[in-house]
């Protein structure tokens, strides 16, 4: 079983051994790049189909189920759709507005995609399987590279000379900057407890055993659980997924900052967004959900990379589920949520992590209730504040005779 676990590492070593010694580091790097460039865009291609099919099912439609192998009757349940979409976007005319800033307009999609690939390269997808392992600064690298996304959004929005693009870009930047704070603060908790910024080491440290058969994932602690929820929400906002898809709100802003993009550049934006989602999901898995560790010790025989990709698929499905469920927030609600709820909660979570660390020698029965209480009280207070802010709406109907019972909670 250990050989299956390390099969890709062994494969890489075997392939690299064919190259002269001087070129071996270069060959190894190339192999890693090729693997990342093949695997994650592949997942992206499948995700586009799965997302459309699942969203359709959520809305009581069958979804795309026709495109299969051309010239045959084989339909593959619609999984040929991504090839059709890909060919279409590659062969479409590339339109650039006459007033656009051509250079910036051209560069923007690449500024989005390149960092997305870079940030995927630090995520450990299995035991000994991180393409780039910064022993000292892995997580910092991830956040630093992620900062380029905002620049790309701005470049795309500004260079298009379109008010919708610019509005989308402004919304996008404000949203990403606001949610970066809870994102970083909630992952700081893990850094605090693990004592390292290296993602591989953080994953490794969660292979301990607690409660007999359960691996000690960070999510199984009060600070880990709260941090995970904050991270998940912020990740959703960072990757511009519904309910936080204001930058590309199609009902208000056409397509937000990539309104003026078509053909291959549009496909690049699409790819970049999804790769960013995979990367941030991968980091969430590594930080909180045990990385490539199995949940239970008796499941350790399953290869580590399978666990990682299984969890990644779970994340993708969950994001699709959220998209099918939640309506889009308003801009002021979005900012309120970031600054008045998530930021205080992540600060409180830092305190909880400190208490947990100091109370390491206490019995569980004392440590758990204390930390949960420290978390629950601000949560209750802050959400009460929200409920008074978001009063339940009363709708007035044309018919006077009918009472207006329909109220909807406007709060998130």
């Amino acid at each position, binding site marked *: 079983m250990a050989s299956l676990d390390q099969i890709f590492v062994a494969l890489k070593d075997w392939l690299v051994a064919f190259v002269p010694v001087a070129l071996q580091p270069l060959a190894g790097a190339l192999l890693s790049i090729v693997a990342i460039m093949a695997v994650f865009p592949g997942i992206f291609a499948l995700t586009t189909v799965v997302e459309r099919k699942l969203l359709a*099912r959520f809305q*009581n439609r*069958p979804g795309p189920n026709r495109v299969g192998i051309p010239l045959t009757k084989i339909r593959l349940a619609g999984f040929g759709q991504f090839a059709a979409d890909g060919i279409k976007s590659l062969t479409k005319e590339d339109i650039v507005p006459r007033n656009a800033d051509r250079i910036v307009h051209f560069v923007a999609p690449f500024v989005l995609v390149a960092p997305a690939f870079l940030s995927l390269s630090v995520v450990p997808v299995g035991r000994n399987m991180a393409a780039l392992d910064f022993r000292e600064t892995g997580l910092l690298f991830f956040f630093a590279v992620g900062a380029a996304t905002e620049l790309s959004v701005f470049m795309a929005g500004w260079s298009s000379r379109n008010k919708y693009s610019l509005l989308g870009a402004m919304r996008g930047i404000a949203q990403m900057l606001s949610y970066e704070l809870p994102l970083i603060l909630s992952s700081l908790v893990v850094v605090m407890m693990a004592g390292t910024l290296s993602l591989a080491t953080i994953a490794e440290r969660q292979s301990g055993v607690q409660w007999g058969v359960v691996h000690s994932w960070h999510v199984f602690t009060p600070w880990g659980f709260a941090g995970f929820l904050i991270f998940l929400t912020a990740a959703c906002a960072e990757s511009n997924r519904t309910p936080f898809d204001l930058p590309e709100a199609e009902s208000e802003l056409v397509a937000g900052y990539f309104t003026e993009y078509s053909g291959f550049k549009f496909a690049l934006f699409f790819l970049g967004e999804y790769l960013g989602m995979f990367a941030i999901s991968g980091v969430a898995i590594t930080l909180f959900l045990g990385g490539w560790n199995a949940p239970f010790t008796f499941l350790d025989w399953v290869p580590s990379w399978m666990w990682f990709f299984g969890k990644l698929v779970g994340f993708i499905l969950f994001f699709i589920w959220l998209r099918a*469920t939640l309506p889009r927030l308003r801009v002021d609600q979005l900012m309120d949520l970031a600054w008045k709820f998530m930021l205080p909660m992540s600060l409180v979570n830092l305190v909880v992590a400190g208490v947990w660390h100091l109370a390491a020698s206490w019995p569980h029965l004392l440590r758990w209730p204390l930390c949960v209480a420290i978390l629950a009280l601000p949560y209750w207070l802050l959400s009460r504040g929200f409920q008074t802010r978001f009063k339940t709406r009363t709708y007035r109907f044309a018919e006077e005779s009918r009472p207006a019972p329909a109220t909807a909670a406007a709060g*998130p």
Partner: protein
Amino acid sequence: MIGIGIAKGLVQTARNLLGTYTDKDRLPTIEYPEERQALTEATRQFPFLVHDGDDPAKGLRCVACQICEKECPPKCIYIVKSRDKRVDYKGQMQFYPATFDIDYSVCMSCQICVEVCPFESIKMDTEFEFSTADRFRGLLFDKHRLAKSDAHYHRIHPTDAAESDAVMAAERAKAEAKAKADAEAKAKAAAAKLAPTPAASPEAQMEAPKPGSDTPTMPM
């Protein structure tokens, strides 16, 4: 508290998702080209021309009166009247359309042409699959493509067809009655001619109908 509403919503959508695999009511979509919904009798799409008998060229009920052409809101009908006349279903001599074109790409299916037609000759069809690669002439239907048999009309809209048959039968009966009356009048006139009277004025002689005339009214 924040979060409870989200959880409720997630449960609801999950129920929707799983329901589509088990519950037929949750997946009401029909996959069109393979499965088709039965059309209701009142279905109407685009107008067609009804012809009696087997030969569409001869049996067209249309008399090229051009009322539909004038009434059509998007002006998608184009008619050229014939120069000669032929016998229509009432047995009278009428014009017939030399050209009758409807541009289906312009037609808005309002059915006004059907309502104004006094000869029960233009009706709404249920056919709707007209997709074509020819952008300009593909949807321009001439009278050969528009002509469909009365049997077809009876098949797609039996109630309406029965009604229009009744109307036509009534008109035919009226026409026959009139023809009979004409014949009688003619006979009488002929009898009067045979026994000339001094009262017979030259005008009466001039206005005496020629046999086979199709003028509907005739002063006695």
